[in-house]
């Protein structure tokens, strides 16, 4: 049965629109999968080095101390990125496949999902790092010496990984709950940072106990089994078109956003995009994900030994969340009513400009917020965020829009509301254009930084951005050409919505 479903998915891929583009994105998806499969083991080793308190030789206690954050983070990240498997379940309802099988397939499929495999891979290498003696040169003394000592601890972790996996099924419709979890995570970390209350004082011994008493791991395993059964029953019961397969109906008042009118001709489109972001879960989730990117720079701040161009990458990415996550789906956000747009009394160029304007507003706002957030890191960080922001506006904005002309995957704005109806796991295309968008400025920065210092590097990247902003009209002509020549095939692909 599993094979049969997989076969259906295989067909839906190969019979999809524009197979060339599809295969290309698949190739890059694999590139990133391989990238992560290499990164995961490296991080596994790295963890052991990072989680070493000054003067301490054993990283294990500190590792356990931070485990609680890792878990909460897993829950939140899964909610925003990991989508429960694509399966068009409605037509299957009337086929002679039992409902239990349909649900079981959807649940079992996630066992091998990329997100889980990567974490487990990481765990394997963490284990190797913990028990092997390759860190002797760092004068590390790791508690355990054999794999057997770690069995209980590992079982507990694997159970927790899958508990968060299945929790994701239940959280799917509960936006508020996830925001609360995120807020708790942030405030707990803040309490710890300002040394008011340290929650990890309590959770650390808890996780450590699984190492001391391996048999305790029965508890999380039982919890996992219970959760699986619960989720199974939950969806088995809800497999009706008027319950869990039914989209929730929201209501609203008329919203006119008069303050947008100052953007002139483009205001009418920008208003629509704001409504889109507010009202489509798919768009909302994407934008929220983009907001999280604001914190990306900290990843590099926490690890001070990184190469400088890596740090710059982090700061540059800070302002690009909206651009990369939302912007790269332009014009697919309008895929459901693209023919309407093509028949309205507007020149094509204004439509494209309005999209650009939206990206510029969001990027400028992120840059501003980024500057505030990273101001306590130092002047270098602020300059890097600013330079990155300018580059994102003056270069990456165009690149994203241009690539958008070739985007032919329709987005179903309405279906994102139930776990069985959503599409797309890793968004490969987003990652695909991010390569030229990121490598060029980082290389430029790297070279300038090497010879003339950090600020010159920032200035060089920023000047490209400014140049791009000045060349706006020329660039738009080129973008318009791409959009015009792709118009008919885009319409055709979108009509398959």
């Amino acid at each position, binding site marked *: 049965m599993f094979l049969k479903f997989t076969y259906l998915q295989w067909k839906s891929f190969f019979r999809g629109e524009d197979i060339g583009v599809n295969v290309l994105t698949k190739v890059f998806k694999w590139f990133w999968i391989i990238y992560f499969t290499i990164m995961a083991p490296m991080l596994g080793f790295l963890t052991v080095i990072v989680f070493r308190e000054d003067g301490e030789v054993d990283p294990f206690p500190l590792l356990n101390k931070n485990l609680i954050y890792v878990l909460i983070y897993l829950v939140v990240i899964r909610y925003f990125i990991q989508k429960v498997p694509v399966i068009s379940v409605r037509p299957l309802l009337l086929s002679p496949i039992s409902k239990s099988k349909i649900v079981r397939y959807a649940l079992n499929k996630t066992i091998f999902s990329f997100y889980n495999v990567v974490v487990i891979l990481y765990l394997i290498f963490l284990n190797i790092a913990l028990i092997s003696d390759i860190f002797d040169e760092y004068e590390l003394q790791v508690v355990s010496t054999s794999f057997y000592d770690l069995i209980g601890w590992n079982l507990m972790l694997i159970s927790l990984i899958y508990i968060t996996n299945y929790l994701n099924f239940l959280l799917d419709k509960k936006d508020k709950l996830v925001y609360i979890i995120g807020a708790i995570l942030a405030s707990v970390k803040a309490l710890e940072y300002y040394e008011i209350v340290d929650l990890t004082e309590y959770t650390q011994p808890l996780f450590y106990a699984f190492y001391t008493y391996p048999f305790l791991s029965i508890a999380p395993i039982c919890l996992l089994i219970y959760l699986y059964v619960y989720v199974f029953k939950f969806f088995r019961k809800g497999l009706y078109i008027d319950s869990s397969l039914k989209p929730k109906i929201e209501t609203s008042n008329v919203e*006119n956003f008069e303050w947008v009118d100052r953007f002139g001709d483009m205001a*009418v489109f920008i208003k629509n995009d704001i409504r889109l972001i507010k009202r*489509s879960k798919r768009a909302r989730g994407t934008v929220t994900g983009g907001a999280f990117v604001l914190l990306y720079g900290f990843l590099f701040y926490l690890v001070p030994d990184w190469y400088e161009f890596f740090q710059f990458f982090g700061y540059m990415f800070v302002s690009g969340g909206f651009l990369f996550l939302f912007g790269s789906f332009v014009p697919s956000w309008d895929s459901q009513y693209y023919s309407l747009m093509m*028949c*309205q009394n507007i020149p*094509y160029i204004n439509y494209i400009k309005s999209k650009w304007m939206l990206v510029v507003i969001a990027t400028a706002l992120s840059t501003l917020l980024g500057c505030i957030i990273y101001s306590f890191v130092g002047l270098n960080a602020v300059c890097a965020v600013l330079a990155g922001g300018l580059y994102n506006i003056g270069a990456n904005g165009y690149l994203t829009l241009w690539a958008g002309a070739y985007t032919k995957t329709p987005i179903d704005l309405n279906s994102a509301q139930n776990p069985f109806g959503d599409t797309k796991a890793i968004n490969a295309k987003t990652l695909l254009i991010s390569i030229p968008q990121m490598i060029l400025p980082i290389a430029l920065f790297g070279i300038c930084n090497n010879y003339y210092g950090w600020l010159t590097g920032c200035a060089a990247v920023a000047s490209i951005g400014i140049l791009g902003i000045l060349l706006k009209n020329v660039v738009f002509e080129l973008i318009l050409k791409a959009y015009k020549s792709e118009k008919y095939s885009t319409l055709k692909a979108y009509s398959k919505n």
Partner: protein
Amino acid sequence: MIEINNITKKYSKDTVLDVLKLDIPDGQTFGLVGNNGAGKTTLFSCLLDLVKPTTGKITNNGVDVKESEEWKKFTTAFLDESFLIGYLLPEEYFYFIGELRGLRKKQIDDFLLKFEEFFNGEIIGKKKYLRDLSKGNQKKAGIVAALIGDPKVVVLDEPFANLDPSTQIRLKQIIKELSSSGTTVLVSSHDLQDVTEVCKRIVLLEKGKVINDINTSNKTLSELESYFKS
């Protein structure tokens, strides 16, 4: 005046549309009938520059639709649900279309008042997004949006399908009023009775070709029915 010259559309070997010459004068109510796959929607799509014809040229009031976007200023259409923006309230949708046609909010409100009866209280002020309306109500909103801003040419694909009987009658009334005010209305339909009732001229398409071109009279309905029977 809409001039259709030598329009063909081929998908690999299949010819789905092959219209030699068709002129639609200003103010005519023009009906297109034919079975599934006759090419009705394709012809409308070519006229709206949504599909690129393999050969031929369509000019809409002197504008070659492939070359210029000027026709958008005086032409409106409602072909299918891809002309609706699901996450908007009907009011917001009308404002959006109206603003693009250069109207102010107040003018749009006044315009909508005329359709109170047509809407039957199910569209305005319901706080429901277009995506959550029934098919019939969605269609009503789409058709009315296509009438905003005094267009010279209105294209409606299957406007009568999915509508309840009262709305169908009201819609016929609306189309007749449009034609008496000089608007060119292009309608396609599966329902022979509906088209013969509203259209002054009916063109019968089959497999992309014009089979018959009739000025509507008392005999038209039975003529058409006998054609489709055989």
